[in-house]
């Protein structure tokens, strides 16, 4: 009965009321994942579970037995930042930084969704290959709020980071 968090096996909490977010922050002192609204509205607590983005505040930790969780702390390779982390710095993708870990985890999950062809609310054709236009990115990232107003920088950072990946995917298709 354990969860793999950034590759490390962690025992499930005894109390089923403990959210995945509180397990991360209070149980493991992984404070990179942020508690914003604690009701699924802001996306600051976004983490990846088996590669899929979820909001950890609405996730009861006991439901995630045997799953692999990746948080912002699990993205860098030693001192080498994840390309998306570097791009957020390069494009001023934050001011206060509170939403940033959730934005970055969300963008990684979003890229995987787009790669396997998941359409969005603004996709004109539900069956076409996904092209991550600015409008598509804004819609797909709408579950992550930034109250500093850094959204333009955030979208720029994501576009730059995913550009080669998207182009490669399109060429391979």
């Amino acid at each position, binding site marked *: 009965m354990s969860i793999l968090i950034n590759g490390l096996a962690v025992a499930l909490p005894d109390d089923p009321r403990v959210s995945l977010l509180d397990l991360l922050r209070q149980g493991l002192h992984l404070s990179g994942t942020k508690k914003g609204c604690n009701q699924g509205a802001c996306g600051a607590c976004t983490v990846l579970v088996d590669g*899929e983005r979820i909001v950890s505040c609405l996730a009861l930790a006991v439901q995630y037995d045997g799953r692999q969780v990746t948080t912002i702390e699990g993205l860098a390779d030693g001192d080498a930042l994840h390309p998306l982390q570097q791009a957020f710095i390069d494009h001023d993708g934050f001011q206060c930084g509170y939403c940033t870990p959730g934005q970055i985890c969300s963008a990684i999950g979003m890229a995987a969704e787009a790669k396997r062809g998941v359409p969005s609310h603004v996709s004109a054709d*539900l069956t076409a290959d996904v092209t991550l236009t600015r409008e598509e990115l804004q819609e797909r990232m709408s579950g992550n709020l930034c109250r500093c107003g850094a959204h333009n920088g955030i979208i720029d950072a994501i576009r730059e980071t995913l550009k080669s990946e998207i182009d490669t995917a399109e060429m391979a298709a």
Partner: protein
Amino acid sequence: MTPFTYARAEDAADALRLGQASAAAYLGGGTNLVDLIRETVAKPSALIDVTGLSSEIEETEGGGLMIGAAVRNTALAEHLAVRTRYPVLSRAILAGASAQIRNMATVGGNLLQRTRCTYFYDTDGSRCNKRAPGSGCDAIEGFTRGHAILGASSACVATHPSDMCVALAALDAIVHLHGRGGARTLPFTELHRLPGDHPEFDTVLEPGELVTAIELPPMNFAANSTYRKVRDRASYAFALVSIAAALEIEGGVVKDVRIALGGVAHKPWRASKAEAVLRGGPATEQAFRAAAVAEMADAQPLRDNGFKIELTKRTLVAVLGDLSGAAA
């Protein structure tokens, strides 16, 4: 949060057995129930995790689809058969919540989510007949921009929040249930209730009864279907009004049509009156308008939501116009 026990159900029978505990609740992705527990609107003593039950989407012998109750919202929206044969369902799901929440939320849980009426959530400050039966309703005389215009009662004016359910109402979906008396099926449009004197009951489910699957019957013309949602911001907001519609036109005449409305009632609102006006008649904007007027004839505005009546009519005319263009 009040304490509760947690158990994971192996199958439907196991879930029913575990669900017999008093004040037990079935748990899907938790995106609504965990919040309700945290806000002390819901106080279950036991959570039965049913996410291990069927998460398959399978073709039925009749040419439809059988969707397991544990299928995640994203998985349903991206399924190729849904995207091509029932696009209204993909579009409705993609119009709801955020990607993170759609990745967590299950189909069964989406059906059974509670209203987002703020008075329902306000445990300290507001009376609510849905939360505390017989206590009164502070919404009716309150801020009612988001509330119902069709089928409401003097006890409750809440709306059903789901987008997905509006599409299911339009698609003649069938709900598969498993209860203490065995298995049964129900037309989707009969699952949710109007509030009447008992708004505490959102659905006709028996105590402990479990949603096991949703069946989509074959509907060839549903390939020409769509969902339009009108809301206060462009993304990640609940509907003011929404329209799910499928349209079949032959020689300029409406051969068949399905319409359901969201954001206007205590349940996903099948627009049978509008459908009756349209069926067999000309596919013209004038006819679309007449259908919309007929459906909204019984609408009752509250202080702040009268705009929804005309908004629903115009949105319906626009959606049918789009679909008739696509079908021509």
